[in-house]
């Protein structure tokens, strides 16, 4: 056991930090928020630094690393609320293609992702209010015979992160009637197709825009089907676990920064003739922020490790991560606003950027409540088998 980041992980974090700082740090996110598209240029640089290749297997020109490595990097990305579909591409799409893809699909997508030529996202929801898996409704009608099979996708996906800034979206659709995840198949859909159109939604988090993706009778061949027909559900669940852990890793990095901001302000800002950080109302609130951040970070590392190692409790650990971190990290950002008094309640103070990100993630891919439900079921099953 050595439950720390390795020296290599720390080096990556350091390099990433220097790089993002040199590009303007959180101003990248602010520019994106102000309506500029910083993703295209930024992505090329991320690719130059090989970040897009991290989770791509060695034989497809990648580094063959897993969630731990990625989480270490995403922590730094989260500190700057870095725009771009890095979690979507590296934590969700690449592992799905790696694990489910045919040789042809892998060599079609993975080396291009590694090179930075291909960005990916994932489309699960068909309804903004219906939780998963019920929220997966789009049908994909199967046509033709063996060898000439085609699928016709029809419907509008919603809450698709960065759809307009990505080349391929992995779409969850139903190929037959079924309960829950049964009957769900996954398709790799190219976004530049005429039948596919992305419309920007009014996302709470302007740094990470969401899109509606309308698919108007798109016919794709069997080579777009990722993994078993009707049987994409369990891989999708694992992919969403990776997504949640990756997203939480970003929030942990942001929370680390929020603690720093509170400590800086608590030391500099004086009221009543003394630094406000000396008042225990502020000091203890900040200590609690740190404890919650460290706890969430510990869960992220554990879950990332368990996912990489295929540990039997990997899904449970991912559920625990989301269940624990979603509201607690959200509160960390809110507490940072409060620690800054009136200054905290301004557009200029960074906490609102993080706060909105945390709120956007909260129910996405499963609320903490839904994850607590999963967690208990998994725990009970594990106890029965003990």
């Amino acid at each position, binding site marked *: 056991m050595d439950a720390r980041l390795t020296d290599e992980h720390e080096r990556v974090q350091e390099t990433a930090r220097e790089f993002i700082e040199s590009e303007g740090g959180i101003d990248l996110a602010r520019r994106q928020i102000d309506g500029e598209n910083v993703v295209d240029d930024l992505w090329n640089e991320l690719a130059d630094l090989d970040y897009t290749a991290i989770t791509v297997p060695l034989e497809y020109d990648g580094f063959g690393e897993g969630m731990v490595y990625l989480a270490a990097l995403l922590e730094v990305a989260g500190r700057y609320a870095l725009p771009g579909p890095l979690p979507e591409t590296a934590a969700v799409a690449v592992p799905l293609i790696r694990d489910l893809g045919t040789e042809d699909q892998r060599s079609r997508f993975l080396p291009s992702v590694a090179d930075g030529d291909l960005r990916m996202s994932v489309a699960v929801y068909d309804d903004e209010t219906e939780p998963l898996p019920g929220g997966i409704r789009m049908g994909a009608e199967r046509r033709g015979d063996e060898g000439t099979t085609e699928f016709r996708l029809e419907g509008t996906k919603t809450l698709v992160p960065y759809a307009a800034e990505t080349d391929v979206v992995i779409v969850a659709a139903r190929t037959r009637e079924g309960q829950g995840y049964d009957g769900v198949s996954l398709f790799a859909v190219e976004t530049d197709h005429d039948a596919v159109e992305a419309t920007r939604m009014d996302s709470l988090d302007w740094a990470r825009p969401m899109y509606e993706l309308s698919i108007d009778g798109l016919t794709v061949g069997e080579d777009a089907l990722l993994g078993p027909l009707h049987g994409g559900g369990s891989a999708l669940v694992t992919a969403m676990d990776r997504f949640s852990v990756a997203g939480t890793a970003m929030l942990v990095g942001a929370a680390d920064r929020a603690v720093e901001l509170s400590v800086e302000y608590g030391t500099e800002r004086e009221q009543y003739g003394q630094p406000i950080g000396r008042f225990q109302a502020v000091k203890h609130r900040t200590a609690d922020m740190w404890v919650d951040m*460290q706890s969430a970070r510990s869960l992220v590392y554990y879950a990332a490790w368990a996912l990489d190692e295929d540990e039997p409790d990997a899904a449970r650990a991912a559920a625990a991560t989301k269940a624990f971190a979603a509201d607690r990290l959200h509160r960390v950002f809110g507490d940072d606003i409060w620690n800054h008094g009136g200054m905290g309640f301004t557009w200029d103070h960074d906490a609102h950027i993080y706060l909105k990100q945390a709120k956007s993630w909260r129910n996405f891919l499963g609320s903490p409540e839904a994850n607590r439900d999963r*967690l208990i079921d998994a725990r009970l099953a594990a106890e029965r088998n003990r």
Partner: protein
Amino acid sequence: MDFSYTDEQESFRRELRAWLEENAPDGWLEDPELPDDDAERVEFLRDWQRTLADGGWAGVHWPEEYGGRGASLIEQTIYREEMARINAPPQINLIGINLIAPTLIEVGTEAQKQRFLPKILSAEEIWCQGYSEPEAGSDVASLTTSAEPAGDGEWRIDGQKIWTSYAHVADWCFLVARTDDSGTKHEGLTAFLVEMDQDAISTEPIHQPHDDRTFNQVYFDDAVATDDRVVGEVDQGWDVVMTLSAFEHGSTSIYSIEQRYLDLLEYCRTETRNGTPLIERDRVRQRLADFDARIQAAKAAHRRNVSKQMETGTPGPEGSMDLLVSDELRHDLLNFAVNLRGPAAALWENGHNAFDDTSGYIRSYGAWIAAGTGDIQRNIIGERVLGLPKDDKSKTSHRSE
């Protein structure tokens, strides 16, 4: 990064598990229950510790030359997991084993080690820790119990200690007294090993909310300690206090909390209300899952800390996080467990298992206070981990600092 145990570490676990199967007190593995009667319980626990010591499982973290196993921090973690798994009886001399002996090993004289360590291990001599006084609790450095040289290599001790756990059964006291009051409060303190069996010392048990009497007032009226019972240097007792507090911060109770949670889960699976198992109620599931996630977070954080400490050698102020999280987690969990009884929450005995919840929940209020209150842990995190400005008046105050 690796959260798993090596084969070698797993074999440590197997060895311990096999030993416990053989040597746990009669009937314990089926139905863990301590004797009700106070005196019987003390005897039972002394016996248990002796058994542990004979098997080499009392002070696993002590160096081998003093009867320990030189267990690494990771092996100590495994030890805690396994002991929690069978709800093992506590070691009656836990203060001696976990705090005082490691301090003596680090700063004691060779003669002190030879004289005291074996009997700490076997529970032949039980120890208490005499720090707190009526006017010096969190701010322990302001203590006033005095020790003065009385010639012939003797010291005379006068004053009062309070909340001293196990003083009523202890043979020895690890006492901090003021030997010089001319300087600041952290100067002029000295640590002594004081024999409790003297007329000049009287103990008065204090009645606690859970209807037990595990701590005491202790009065010193010209009590004697000899020169060779001074730990470290005279007037340099604060260093010794710091050494000991590092060991206090190095121990975690998260594994026994986890076991308690698993017991509660089992209870919720089998217990019904209006014909429905508790575990099927959404409200119950949500709370249990939140505890589950908090426990997993605390365990993973503990493993990260242990890994760090394996390299740095010293537990950092991060230990405050473990104490704080564990104390509040235990409290919330036991509080919830009582609430689940329904109307029976109004009763002391509500028949779950040997560790009946009601008194455990009340006891958990004491745990939040005992090793430095939650407030003090938050001060330590705010000031020492995060570097926020210190309160002028309480600059380095508690023994945990």
